């Protein structure tokens, strides 16, 4: 316990001593301001697809379409049965394939480096397909392709992550049970437009659900428990985290900027209508990990993230505090990054239900309360470190420390923002000439120039030979034969697919310099 206190809130006492007088002064003349949230302005600071109105977003969400960010399923279906390999099915699959996985036990790492693959478990009378890493395998599902869907699996006993994304866009991670999969349960990273919903994740040594460096994310209806952190939104923008049951973790909901990453900001995160209850689990985070510094008993932790809105959450029985708002300066095990802005700007605390928080808080929390003339055994909201532009409504409901200078919010609800998800982002249309050009310049130009000898013959010469026959070039480069005694034999370019080979041939035939 002592260790974790030191980890995150090392300098709180110093701040309290410094700022105590000011807090006291404010606390003594505060008056109650009651705001009616059934009326009032809506939050508009969010994000919509270009040209879309809030009404359109709501309508499309009501129709359910926006949860299907990966687009329509293709017609190809492959069935994997107990004793077979899911990975082999992925390797054999063309984009657009749905892989149905029957109940059974699978010991493998399944990686997906192609687009439009769906791995859908079939649940028979409660029996799921189980991916079991037996604490020997690293990750269960590792995808880098776009439009990836994974549903209905049970994933357990891996050492790294349950489901890990590396830059895939338009992903749907749904209805999975993830138990003790190492560092993270579900970890989409560097992706845009994704849904994580209806998953049950537990026993994770860092965050059960960790959205890292991603934009336009929806995390909803998940149960996360018995982990160091419940749901973490880190260096990400435009995320909604709603209707989740977050209990029995060391820390419940986190919005962080972690310094030293290539994406520098966390902005526009809505935490709403979540149950954040009893997050008093022992912190078993790995030494040196960011989450190892979270005091066990933290409901919501906002560190250096901007424009975080808390609305409609039930935050109860978190022994250190319901909500902690802090900055990089107060976190001892966080590095520095000149490009990372260290403060939690514009935190917006709308109406939330807070019960029984902070009954066994850390000494630094007590010191802050004392400095404001507040004794007792409760702490709902505590702020340490600068948090410019932040606001709170109906503050009289809560036991607070350090939010005396927060203003009243100029909106009372987020009803106008149903989701930040986008319609399935269509694959980028690549003109064949563009494909041909980049392949020609990126590969062929290493050996061929227009009008001279380099390693291979001049393009002019090739043009004269093949005139109107691009297919001839496309075929030749796949399996070249030695033609010229005074030139080295061309290496095969069969790693280019037929479409690219033809595109590059067509481009080559019209090069003029």
């Amino acid at each position, binding site marked *: 316990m002592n260790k974790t206190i030191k980890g995150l809130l090392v300098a709180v006492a110093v701040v309290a001593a410094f700022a105590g007088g000011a807090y006291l002064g404010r606390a003594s003349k505060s008056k109650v301001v009651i705001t009616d949230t059934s009326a009032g302005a809506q939050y508009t600071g969010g994000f919509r697809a270009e040209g879309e109105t809030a009404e359109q977003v709501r309508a499309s969400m009501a129709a359910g379409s926006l949860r299907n960010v990966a687009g329509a399923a293709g017609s190809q279906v492959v069935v994997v049965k107990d004793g077979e390999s899911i990975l082999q099915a992925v390797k054999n699959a063309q984009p657009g394939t749905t892989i149905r996985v029957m109940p059974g036990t699978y010991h493998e790492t399944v990686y997906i480096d192609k687009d439009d693959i769906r791995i859908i478990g079939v649940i028979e009378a409660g029996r799921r397909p189980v991916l079991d890493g037996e604490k020997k395998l690293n990750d269960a599902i590792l995808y*880098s392709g776009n439009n990836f869907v994974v549903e209905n699996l049970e994933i357990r006993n891996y050492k790294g992550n349950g489901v890990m994304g590396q830059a895939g866009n338009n992903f749907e991670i749904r209805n999975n049970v993830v138990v003790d999969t190492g560092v993270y349960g579900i970890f989409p990273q560097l992706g845009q437009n994704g849904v994580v919903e209806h998953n049950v994740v537990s026993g994770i040594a860092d965050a059960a659900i960790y959205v890292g*460096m991603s934009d336009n994310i929806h995390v909803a209806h998940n149960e996360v428990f018995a982990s160091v952190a419940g749901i973490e939104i880190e260096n990400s923008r435009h995320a909604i985290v709603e209707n989740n049951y977050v209990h029995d973790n060391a820390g419940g909901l986190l919005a962080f900027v972690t310094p030293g990453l*290539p*994406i520098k900001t966390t902005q526009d995160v809505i935490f709403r209508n979540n149950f954040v209850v009893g997050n008093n689990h022992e912190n078993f985070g790995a030494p040196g990990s960011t989450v190892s510094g979270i005091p066990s008993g933290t409901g919501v932790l906002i560190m250096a993230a901007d424009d975080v809105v808390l609305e409609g959450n039930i935050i109860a029985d978190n022994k250190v505090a319901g909500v902690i708002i802090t900055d990089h300066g107060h976190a001892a095990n966080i590095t520095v990054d000149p490009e990372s802005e260290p403060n939690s700007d514009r935190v917006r605390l709308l109406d939330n239900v807070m019960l029984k928080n902070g009954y066994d808080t850390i000494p630094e929390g007590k010191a802050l309360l004392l400095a404001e003339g507040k004794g007792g055994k409760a702490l709902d909201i505590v702020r340490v470190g600068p948090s410019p532009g932040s606001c709170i409504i109906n503050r009289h409901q809560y036991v607070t420390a350090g939010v005396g200078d927060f203003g009243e919010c100029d909106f009372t609800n987020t009803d106008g923002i149903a989701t930040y998800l986008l319609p399935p982002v269509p694959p980028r249309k690549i003109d064949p000439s563009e494909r041909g050009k980049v*392949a020609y*310049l990126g590969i062929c130009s290493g050996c061929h120039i227009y009008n001279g000898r380099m390693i291979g013959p001049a393009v002019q*010469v090739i043009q004269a030979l093949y005139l109107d026959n691009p297919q001839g070039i496309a075929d030749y480069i796949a399996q070249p034969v030695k033609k010229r005694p005074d030139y080295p034999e061309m290496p095969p370019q069969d790693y280019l697919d037929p479409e690219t080979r033809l595109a590059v041939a067509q481009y080559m035939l019209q090069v003029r310099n």
Partner: protein
Amino acid sequence: MRAGIEGLLLGLLSLLATASPASAATASGGGFELSQRCPPSFELTSRGVCEFRDRYQLYDSLQGRGVGGTRTSLPPHRDGFTPQQIDLGRYLFFDPVLSGDGTLSCASCHRPDKGLADGRPRSVGVDGRDVPRAAPTLWNVAFLKRLFWDARAESLEAQALGPLFSPVEMGNEPAKLLKSLNGNATYRRLFGEAFPSRQGAITTDDVASALTAFESTLVSFNSRYDRYVHGHAAALNDRELEGLNVFRSFVARCSECHTPPLFTNGEVAVIGAPEPKGRAFDAGAQDVFHAPKLRGGFRVPTLRNIARTAPYMHSGAFTTLRETVEFYNKGRGNAVPKGEQLYLHWHISSPDLTEREVDRIVDFLQTLTDETFMPQVPERVPSGLPPLDNPVRTASARPVANSQGAVR
């Protein structure tokens, strides 16, 4: 019929070959001619400048930052130089006249036969002594936002002048450099051709621009790994694929900082790598950013062509790739000197990889090799000194005079 045409065209070909400007520079006696053609992977635009083209440009990346997974676009980069500026940069790069005593060129420490590094634990400067750190590879430097191991330069121009005027590296001084270049008729003409709008004497800015132009063309995106990314599943064998998956797993976590497609995220990281025996601790980025938490921090290096650039780490503590991977596997902080308190990066963990997994990572790293667009070393450079570096230096650790008679 076809054979006939081909015979005819072969004749045409040899004719064209002799007319090529690239060979003219080396063929004729006096003249140095600057190429009018962009290097491979660059397109000559209607504005007359060379712009980078590669298949990675067909992809996107989050916030355009160029970090992610397999089919991810590249980060912002430098290009837009003319063919003449690039070729002038090449002559300068290989010309020992840039060093104070005429013994070293840029290429002495960024050697074409050593993966554009130099194969030494630490580079050797003009006086024959070790400089503090290793020469990093120049492959794909156009994509880096910060240069030097300690991330102290924010542009290639700023970087280029660093070693040039460092007394322990190339040991030149601005006035002396400009005197040599302005005193050389060939350089005066070539700078005039490369920078037609400039007037008066050659400046250090011109030198930095030309070197930047050349260095920005050192691109490597045609490795076997890249073939795999672009859709050729068979480009990597089973061992290499296994290695890729360990590399990007969240147990090893290599790809969290060595992020594809560049295999660096460009950030500074404190990993606690050791100094070779007998060398003092190197504070790295701490001094640059005046940040105690960055003590021992260094810029994450690219892993492209990593198999070509041994030894490894900022001061060459490891001679093989396997030793280097093993360092990460020996546990968080295993080489931090007693008494040093470092804020080790959170991804530096104790992954406990098996020997087999370590081997597979090394297998995978070999697939990042691609030097197909290695520039040609000029046969001669305008100063008349031997290109690349001056043999005087290799003959004696303490050269007293260069070929121009200048005493150091």
